């Protein structure tokens, strides 16, 4: 019984991204509605698509190669470092930094800025949702 319980606990830690708070969930639902307008077959945001958006390299706003991982690193539970200023960036993953993905004003600000910096354009509603699912999925050790 103990083993089963332990297994269940371990499974829930690995498998479950914590749910968004109400404020963020409302924002995510809005992104879904917006995505459906231009993509009638859309079902839900996707962690794998988010990972691709987050880890791929692009010619950014400065005209040079950059990825989200340039500053945030590929390990979202670890500190990152601002590539321009050297300032340390706290981990993005909510599992390592409980303040992340909790404030819609902050989310909108950083999604706007960082899509511009990395992609040299705004992100679409679907891209924003995919990235949020990806960030939210990262727990320690994966």
């Amino acid at each position, binding site marked *: 019984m103990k083993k089963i319980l332990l297994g269940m606990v371990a499974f829930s830690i690995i498998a479950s991204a914590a749910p968004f708070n109400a404020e963020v969930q409302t924002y995510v639902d809005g992104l879904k509605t917006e995505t459906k307008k231009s993509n009638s077959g859309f079902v839900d945001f996707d962690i794998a698509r988010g990972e691709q958006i987050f880890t791929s390299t692009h010619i950014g*706003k*400065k005209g040079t190669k950059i990825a989200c991982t340039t500053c945030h690193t590929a390990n979202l539970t670890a500190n990152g470092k601002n590539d*321009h*200023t*050297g*300032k340390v960036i706290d981990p993005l993953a909510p599992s390592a930094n409980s303040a992340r993905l909790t404030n819609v004003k902050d989310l909108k*600000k950083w999604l706007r*800025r*960082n899509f511009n910096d990395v992609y040299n354009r705004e992100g679409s509603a679907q891209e924003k949702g995919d990235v949020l699912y990806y960030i939210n999925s990262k727990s320690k050790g994966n």
Partner: protein
Amino acid sequence: MKKLILMVVVLSGAMFAGSGVGVKPVSNQLYINECGSCHFAFQPGLLPQRSWTKMMGDLANHFGTDASLNKADTATLLAYMTLNASDKSMNYKRSQRMTNSINTSNTPLKISEVPYFKSKHRELSRAMITQKEVGSITNCVACHSNASKGDYHGTYVPNYGRVDD
């Protein structure tokens, strides 16, 4: 007794004059949160009003990155920055010197391009700045451990030691 009190007053006055607070420390939490999330929260007293006005007018193109904020926060910050700009803080030694060193026809956006700043950092080698413990001339606290208090005395360059200022 009177003499003793006078001495204490004079002495503490001298100590204050010798203390390093040359720029008014940042006192605005929004400023610390927003500007300080990407870089050292440079005191508004390091650039004149006209520089801050120009900078805050184009945060979407902030030294090559998008640092845009919503309109309300932009306005709140600009009001704080201009109220405490170098040319409004002439009672602080370094604000006064920064202000006076800038040609009135110039509107610098980089603190590191202000003549007074440049003259104070002219002896630094490139290696001192590019080493990983510093990385950039914008990383004030790397060498000025009390920079966030507006105190730029006590310069200590990592791996090189004290630099007299």
